[in-house]
């Protein structure tokens, strides 16, 4: 008898999604899909609102990466109003964004992903979680909780509010950094860098080798990639041009203001989430595991694939080691975790660079802003991918139209493909165990949706 399996909710991810798997009469894979379950309507309800209020509204799209929405939105409003942030305002924004990346990757690696690797994919679900890790390895767990908390509280103490930030403002930043704050944060970020280096070493020695077989097979698909690079082609999280790479490694670079010439969003009847695809490739859109069309991926692995190099020395050394093993572009889905830890090293190094520049304490943090009619696209690399906010304003500076492409959504198509691939490879003759279903979820979890 044919059978339907519903994995709902997908757990240890950051949003609302479910997996459906259909088996044929023999109990083998017929089809699978990932449904994205909710629609909140941000693109509609921001209409008519004063543009300068948007950075504090749209951050509520995601409580895990609110800084990303907050800052992409600020950039879009800057452009609508024709204002350039002051140098110190610009640096403070990048600093907050970079430190937020450093926090986010620790959260994902240890709290969400690690249970699969440290406790094991087949372990009882009652212990396959961060609580299980805390009991199995209390020393490491305490260090993780302390370090992540320290990073988070850097943001909270300085910006005053880190979940749903208010500190970025059109024209720059709401408050300057004092010298004693600079030295305090610098000291802390040096500690976080040490922990980032410990983490990537720990993973390279104790985690990735154990799962090398899974890395080579689980959820593996072949796609293009998207990410942000600077003028020299180096990886950048905060600013730069967008690079869209084909599966063969060839790429085009473009200004994010022109994103609509390159990207489209496809709609499926079974998902509220839309599926971005590479419209510029002129091959349409297809979620075919063996012959995907228009599909590219975003997020950590994508960013380190599109970049010619990492802009900081320790992260660059890690990238070289990674590329020697897996090439460019690397396609294996579980390598997202490895790439995430390389970016963690970068985020710490970059935050330290910014803090070592004394001009960060310049009190001129906010440029004068006047509302006006305009259009602006703001973009940053969110942990989960290239985040695009596109607004138009009327002469009073009220929003007339907004289009958002949220980081996670670039990977909605790829996650579907990875789940199809994993289900097809793992389910045979009706043999469905918790371990098998969890492995299929691991193919989603790698994307950190």
């Amino acid at each position: 008898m044919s059978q339907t399996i519903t994995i709902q909710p997908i757990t240890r991810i950051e949003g609302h999604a479910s997996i459906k798997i259909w088996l044929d009469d023999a109990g083998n894979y017929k089809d699978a899909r990932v449904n994205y379950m909710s629609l909140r309507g941000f693109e509609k309800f921001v209409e008519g609102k004063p543009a300068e209020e948007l950075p504090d509204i749209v951050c509520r799209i995601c409580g895990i990466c609110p800084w990303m929405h907050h800052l992409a939105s600020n950039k879009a409003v800057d452009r609508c109003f024709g204002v350039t942030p002051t140098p110190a305002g610009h640096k403070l924004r990048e600093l907050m964004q970079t430190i937020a990346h450093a926090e986010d990757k620790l959260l994902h690696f240890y709290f969400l992903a690690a249970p699969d690797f440290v406790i094991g994919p087949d372990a009882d679900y009652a212990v396959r979680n961060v609580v299980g890790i805390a009991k199995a390895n209390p020393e490491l767990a305490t260090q993780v909780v302390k370090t992540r908390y320290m990073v988070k509280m850097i943001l909270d103490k300085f910006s005053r509010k880190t979940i749903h930030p208010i500190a970025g403002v059109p024209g720059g930043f709401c408050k300057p950094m004092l010298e004693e704050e600079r030295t305090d944060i610098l000291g802390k970020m040096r500690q976080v860098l040490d922990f980032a280096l410990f983490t990537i070493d720990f993973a390279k020695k104790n985690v990735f080798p154990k799962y090398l077989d899974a890395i080579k097979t689980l959820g593996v698909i072949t796609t293009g990639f998207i990410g942000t690079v600077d003028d020299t082609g180096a990886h950048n999280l905060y600013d730069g041009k967008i690079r869209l790479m084909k599966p063969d490694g060839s790429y085009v670079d473009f200004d994010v203001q022109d994103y609509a010439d390159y990207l489209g969003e496809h709609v499926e009847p079974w998902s509220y989430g839309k599926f971005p695809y590479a419209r510029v490739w002129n091959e349409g859109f297809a979620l075919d595991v063996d012959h995907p069309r228009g599909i590219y991926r975003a997020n950590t692995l994508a960013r380190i694939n599109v970049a010619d190099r990492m802009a900081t020395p320790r992260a660059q050394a890690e990238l070289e080691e990674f590329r020697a093993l897996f090439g460019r572009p690397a396609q294996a889905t579980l390598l997202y975790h490895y790439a995430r830890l390389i970016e963690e090293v970068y985020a710490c190094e970059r935050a330290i660079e910014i803090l070592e520049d004394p001009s960060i304490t310049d009190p001129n943090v906010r440029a004068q802003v006047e509302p006006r009619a305009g259009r602006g696209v703001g973009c940053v690399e969110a942990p989960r991918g290239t985040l695009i906010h596109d607004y138009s304003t009327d002469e009073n500076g009220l929003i007339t139209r907004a289009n958002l492409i949220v980081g996670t959504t670039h990977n909605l198509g790829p996650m579907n493909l990875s789940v199809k691939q994993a289900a097809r490879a793992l389910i045979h003759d009706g043999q469905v165990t918790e371990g098998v279903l969890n492995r299929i979820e691991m193919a989603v979890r790698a994307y950190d949706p």
Partner: protein
Amino acid sequence: MGVRVSSEWLNSCSGCEISIIDMGERLLDVLQVADIVHLPALVDSKYFGQLGDQKHLSLPEADVGIISGGIRNEEHLEVAHEMRRKCKLIIALGTCATHGGIPALGNSYTPGQIMERAFSTETTDKPDAYPSDGVPAMLEACYALDEKIKVDIYLPGCPPHPDQVFNALVALVQGKPLNVPTRSVCDTCPTVRKGKGEVKQVRRFLQAPQYQGPDEPLDRMRCLLEQGLLCMGPVTRAGCGGDAVTPRCISARVPCRGCSGPVRHEGNQLLDMMNALASNGIDFKSIPNRPLLLRFSGAHSLLKPAIHERRSS
């Protein structure tokens, strides 16, 4: 066995859950006395059984059920009812759960208008029909939890401060009464108030408020509302600063946007703010967008679609 805790997120952003994690090391203390039986962000318990083969959605029984997010679609509604059935006590965590939160700004529009925009943006390939296969249907509005199920404890905040979450959990475990803030942000704000400002028009937040410099303590800065900025402090519940008390945004020299919802649970931030502006001598008509005064509390039918849209939908 400790206190069994079950947690769900509905029409939400996961910020409330991150606020729980932001208890830091206190989280490890909580885990000593609490058994987490369900929490999708961290624990792998499933609605349809661990093998995904059950027909009906089912959640484990628990002593305390924590729900973040409002109710926007049929799945949220089903999960909320199941939580209510299985949990002895329901905590509405965060302003989305208590008053709808930011997503209830969508209540100014019909579900049709929301879908129409989402599926017709400049980058979207317009579909023949809106998604309906295997996705839960949207309800007419985004509801606060207590519009659909009984709520025992309200912990507003966007998100609630980790101190508030921790204090609430400790009180529950110890069986002590909860100490929930009942005053306004203004009551806990140290800025200087003279009674009335000199400004007659609302000043949009396009430049910094006036203060002497980064070193100036907050208790020397003039009240932001009296400077003409639309500070929602008078009509917003205190507590965002946690044990440190001082309102978060104001300490960053940024006006309060009202994220903890009204001072009294059933208050109306829009009406209350009209009064506050009037007593400050500020012309209410100079506000650029009035629904924005309900940006965190548009549930409970306070924000509604325009009448002609309601008829046509």
